[in-house]
């Protein structure tokens, strides 16, 4: 880098004053431009996000079925009805179970991939292969499910062919379907999180691992003392993204149970329960938008809590690469 004289020679006080005055003018001009430049984005944010969100909050205290119907205030009745509903409680618990169990599975898969894929041959191919299910549409997943998990589908046929007939199960029956859905979510989402955390691992200088190896660190120790501390931020982001995605789990449930019937209570998530309220639930076949909005508020609160918790768990002193 070249250091010029003008960089090192102190300026005369008059020059400073002139510079300060011109900087002040520039800042003033900038300040005048802030509002006009910011206004379109602010208006868009206000109109397309803040107002609809506020409307959702307001709606959760009302009973309304959409345009052309009367809106009436019901106070906390929608929340009270939710608390008293066996189906809502079941969907609430199932959503939490799905978010935590699948989240743990994703964390373990991501951790394993951080150890294995860093040095594995054909790492790029494996990443692409693992990422593929994330790109498949839920409709295609649903079709695949019909071939795989139907009572006379491939899974049971394979178990039968292997002589493991006692392991054959009615996989899509109400008592098992939620476990199958969770397995499906792991299969579908793992690739995204593996790619996400591996992008952070790729940023770690190889010399760190060389030093660790010279010091006699095993693969697991390298993960514990090098990889994990230096990817903590990305893991926190991944955890937050999963908290949001997990609470909103919807289409894969529909893909698994199909659209011909209402998903059984054992398979419902909060988003599915919300969908059922939106698509009719009030007398006259009209939507229960108030209850649906209340479920939406609950989902938002849980998501926020999970994000805060994941950030707190991950909160450490920031480490930076030299």
């Amino acid at each position, binding site marked *: 880098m070249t250091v010029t004289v003008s960089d090192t020679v102190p300026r005369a006080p008059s020059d400073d004053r002139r510079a300060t005055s011109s900087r002040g003018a520039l800042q003033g001009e900038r300040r005048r431009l802030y509002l006009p430049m910011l206004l379109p984005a602010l208006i868009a944010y206000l109109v397309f996000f803040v107002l609809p969100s506020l409307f959702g909050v307001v709606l959760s205290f009302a009973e309304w*079925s*959409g*345009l*052309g*119907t009367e809106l009436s205030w019901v106070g906390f009745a929608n929340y009270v009805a939710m608390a008293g*509903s*066996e*189906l809502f409680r079941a969907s609430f618990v199932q959503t939490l179970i799905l978010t935590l169990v699948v989240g743990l599975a994703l964390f373990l898969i991501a951790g394993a991939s951080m150890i294995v894929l860093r040095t594995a041959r054909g790492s790029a191919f494996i990443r692409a292969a693992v990422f593929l299910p994330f790109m498949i549409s839920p409709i295609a997943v649903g079709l695949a*499910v*019909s071939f795989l*998990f*139907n*009572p*006379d*589908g491939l899974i049971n046929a394979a178990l039968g062919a292997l002589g493991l007939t006692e392991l054959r199960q*009615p*996989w*899509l*029956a*109400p008592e*098992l*379907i939620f476990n199958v859905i969770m397995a499906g979510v792991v299969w579908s989402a793992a690739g995204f999180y593996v790619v996400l955390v591996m992008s952070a691992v790729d940023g770690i200088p190889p010399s760190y691992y060389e030093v660790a190896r010279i010091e006699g660190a095993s693969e697991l120790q390298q993960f514990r003392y090098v990889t994990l501390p230096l990817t903590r931020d990305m893991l926190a982001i991944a955890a937050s993204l999963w908290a949001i995605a997990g609470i909103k789990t919807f289409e894969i449930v529909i893909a698994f*149970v*199909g659209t*011909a*019937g*209402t998903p*059984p*209570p054992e398979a419902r998530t909060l988003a599915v329960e919300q969908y*059922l309220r939106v698509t*009719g*639930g*009030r*007398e*006259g*076949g*009209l939507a*229960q938008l108030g209850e649906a909005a209340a479920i939406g508020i609950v989902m938002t609160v849980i998501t926020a809590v999970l994000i805060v918790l994941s950030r707190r768990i991950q909160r450490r002193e920031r480490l930076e690469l030299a």
Partner: protein
Amino acid sequence: MRNRVIAVATCASAVLALGACGQKLQDAGSPASTGAEPASLLYWGKWAKGTPQANLFESVIADYTKQTGVKIDVQWLAQGQEQQVKNAVATGAGPDFFDTAIDHTAEFRNAGVLGDMGPIFKTKIPGEGRSIEEVLPKSVLKAISDDKGYGFVPHSVFSIGLWYDSAKYPDFAPRSFDELLEIAKKEKASGRAPIALDGSVNAYNSFWIHQMLLSTAGPGILLKLAEDPAAWDLPEVKRAAEALESLVQAELFEPDYMATKFPAAQNAWAGGKHSFILNGSWLGSETASLRAAEVKPRIIAFPPVDPAKGSVATVGALGWGVNAKSRNQRAVADFLAFAMQKKYIDRIATDAANIPSRADSPAPVELQQLQASIRDAEQVTLDGDGVSTVKPKWLADVFLPLDDKFVAGKLTAAEFLAEGKAKTAALNG
């Protein structure tokens, strides 16, 4: 100066906005207010373009335009069409007429979409000298009506019944549920699973108890169960529940029927793997492409649990609703009367393989026994007694989950009745 510019801009925006609204409203037809024939009508269909019904209605529209000069602008909206109709009509726009079905009448009524359809039903069908009302069977007219009158002009009728293979059972005509049970038990003894059921579709599971309840307790029983917990104690309800319990305990459904991925079971039935399936009249056309060559499907009304009681037919219908706010009511009535001509409604059977709404239009051969049952039924009711529109929360939160457990064999008849009563009481407060 700046204020003046803003004022001019605001006025210009308002004018443009109002102009746009005016244009939108005009699309839904305005000239009738002046008494003149409209140049065009707007029709929002639910069928996907290219389906047999869409093709049929497009050809009817082409004939009508050729004959009258009135253009009909048809838009096939497929899924979500009902919501679009409600939203559009609520904002003062929307089509002149639209596709609807029996289970949407209540929501369209509540949203103010439907008006008095009486005058439309009195319109004479060209070349036939009879009105729309006069060519429809009484059972169908009753089914499409609510306390405010007719909900829509029906072109197709559907019902729920027992499908069987007439190649295997040429003289199949069980007079009672017990006779059906015996036939199915014999088939099971020969090593076949007699009855197909996609148990993952809770509506299909509910067909069983509803058909049994209809024959013991009559139409409207599901509504009674939804409204009055004491109805669960009725002996007629107990008899139907015990009939279903005997069917489940005899293990006559296909193995693992609660875990099938729809439409696996109905496809297996079409392929000849099972002999019977309780389903809608639409199933024949829905599975036609998968049908085994040796299978000859037929559908009959479900054999009654109590043959001493009068016959009850489950009737559903598809047809055309008319926007109450359309200013072209007379022109729409003219078109609908044109479309209800026998030559067109016959094609509901020949082109779309469904039961035509007119009494004198024959159904496809596999549906003819069911069509006769609908025509001759002493009483009619809607699918599920129409409870999905009147008591949807009870249906979704109480009845269907409970019925699923009962059909799965996880509850006895006594437990089903006791839990149904308790949960209905809890929901109704």
